[in-house]
């Protein structure tokens, strides 16, 4: 239970096409992450799946059943919002149980589910508090709890962590990963955070301008992006793109990831001057203005002393160079 099929879904707001034909299959129990630049339609797609927005055309099939005409509450889904969206006038317990009361779940069943969910998310001390009396992280856990008690076939998360600070984000990310393992429920998760996508996903869906660019396991996208967009979007710092003609290559564009280059003060493929060095402790990012290749970002591991102005040679790992044709497709 809990599979999702999206068949050629299109969505237009007035004359603006936001989703331009999305096809996707999500298997039962899978954790799928939607990533893409701001405004590419991630939230819109999620809202279409939830039934909060009608698709202009195409079908949504949850668990083998076409749900185009089914209201959100009856689709067997639960959603966690970026802004928490807790009911301000209700305490934590009632925030979690209201949806169940709405569908006339027996009282003892409600109590059992709220107890289980609040235990799982360490919310027991706060059950009688109102949202205003909770911290951001606690509020988001309540929102997740409200989703959990519904025992949905499908969880939908819309950037649930983006309002939390860095430390809390890591904790809550862990909690979501554990939740997925424990419930083995199907989850769809929207984010534009690289790390969240790479760490949580079974498969990542890269969206751009209302289209799917590529679908695949995190390492698949990292190691064999199908095009320039995915290559540039996955990985941080971003992949270096170099004009092929400058290097005398036949390919239009050459791509090398910052971590797939080595530097040497004496010899190497591309000579350049250090513009800036970022020391992150575990690694050092060097910005190099190379004579032949243009501006390069290079990630070296550990501490690397390099003053701006020094001359360095960068050498790409030949087995990990990507080549792209005129249309931006990867040449294999």
């Amino acid at each position, binding site marked *: 239970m809990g599979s999702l099929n999206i068949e050629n879904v299109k969505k237009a707001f007035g004359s603006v096409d936001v989703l331009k034909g999305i096809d996707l299959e999500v298997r039962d129990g899978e954790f799928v992450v939607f990533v893409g630049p701001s405004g590419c339609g991630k939230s819109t797609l999620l809202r279409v799946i939830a039934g909060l927005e009608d698709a202009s055309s195409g079908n949504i099939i949850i668990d083998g059943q076409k749900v185009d005409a089914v209201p959100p*509450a009856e689709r067997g889904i639960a959603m966690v919002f970026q802004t928490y*969206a*807790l*009911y*301000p006038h209700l305490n934590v317990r009632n925030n979690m149980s209201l949806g169940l009361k709405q569908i006339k779940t027996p009282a003892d069943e409600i109590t059992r589910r709220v107890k289980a969910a609040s235990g799982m998310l360490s919310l027991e001390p706060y059950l009688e508090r109102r949202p*205003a009396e909770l911290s951001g992280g606690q509020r988001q856990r309540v929102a997740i709890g409200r989703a959990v008690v519904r025992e949905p076939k499908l969880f939908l998360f819309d950037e649930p962590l983006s309002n939390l600070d860095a430390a809390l984000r890591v904790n809550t990310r862990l909690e979501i990963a554990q939740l997925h393992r424990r419930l083995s429920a199907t989850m769809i998760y929207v984010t534009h955070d690289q790390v969240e996508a790479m760490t949580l996903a079974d498969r990542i869906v890269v969206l751009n301008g209302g289209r799917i660019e590529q679908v695949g396991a995190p390492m698949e996208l990292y190691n064999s992006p199908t095009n320039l967009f995915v290559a540039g979007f996955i990985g941080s710092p971003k992949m270096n793109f170099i004009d092929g003609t400058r290097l005398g290559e036949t390919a239009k564009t050459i791509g090398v990831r910052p971590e797939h280059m080595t530097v040497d003060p004496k010899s190497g493929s591309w000579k350049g001057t250090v513009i800036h060095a970022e020391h992150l402790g575990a690694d050092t990012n060097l910005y190099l203005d190379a004579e032949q290749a243009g501006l390069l970002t290079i990630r070296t591991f550990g501490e690397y002393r390099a003053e701006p102005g020094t001359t360095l040679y960068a050498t790409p790992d030949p087995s990990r160079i990507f080549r792209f044709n005129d249309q931006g497709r990867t040449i294999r």
Partner: protein
Amino acid sequence: MSRATISLPRTVAAHAVLLTYTVIALFPVVVIIINSFKSRNAIFRTPLTPPTAETFDLIGYATVLNQGDFLLYFQNSFIVTVASLFFVLLFGAMAAFALAEYRFRGNTLMGLYLALGIMIPIRLGTVAILQLMVASGLVNTLTALILVYTAQGLPLAIFILSEFMKQVSDDLKNAGRIDGFSEYRIFFRLVLPLVRPAMATVAVFTMIPIWNDLWFPLILAPSEATKTITLGAQLFIGQYVTNWNAVLAALSLAILPVLVLYLIFSRQLIRGITSGAVK
């Protein structure tokens, strides 16, 4: 406010300005109230002094209250104001919610159409309204007044409330939809409480012109049974002789209910939004 930003001369200046304004605004009201407790001669001789043991006289209030129908006028005003207010807030909020929440063809046009009434005074249509009321047999009923005042109050109410409703988080409404709430429940239980301060503002703006109106009661409902307080108070103003004691007493009494309503709404204004649901 942080302590550091307060400087003494600024505080003094600010208070001076505010106090001056308060005095100017309250002066006529105070004059009315103190004179309503004085005898007729004292009103003319020393209008600015408070009543003393000699000049104190309740004759004005006695006249007004013995005037039999005065309580009825009060009641009429109260019914008309409260009922109109209720309908303005209910329908205004519903229309504002529809305009703010749903995308439909002609949404903007509808919004503009509904806001038109802010710019065009309803009194321009008095003749047509009177004909309408005559035709439907509503002349000399409170219903006529309630209908007219509801129409008069709606444009501003919709205009203000739809701006506020647009600011209510979409996520919150969507969370309600996923939990299976009907649109009515979302409106009444989630959205209305969050725009309560705006509702209170609209209530105050709507209520005061209705309570004070003389035009429509005079035209649509001048009968003895449907007179409102402002119309009733005219009784004491004659072409040649004006019973000032009674007029002042009537006006003083007329301030009371509207003051009570105002206090109720301003508490809402101050209490503010139940925060913490979102972000």
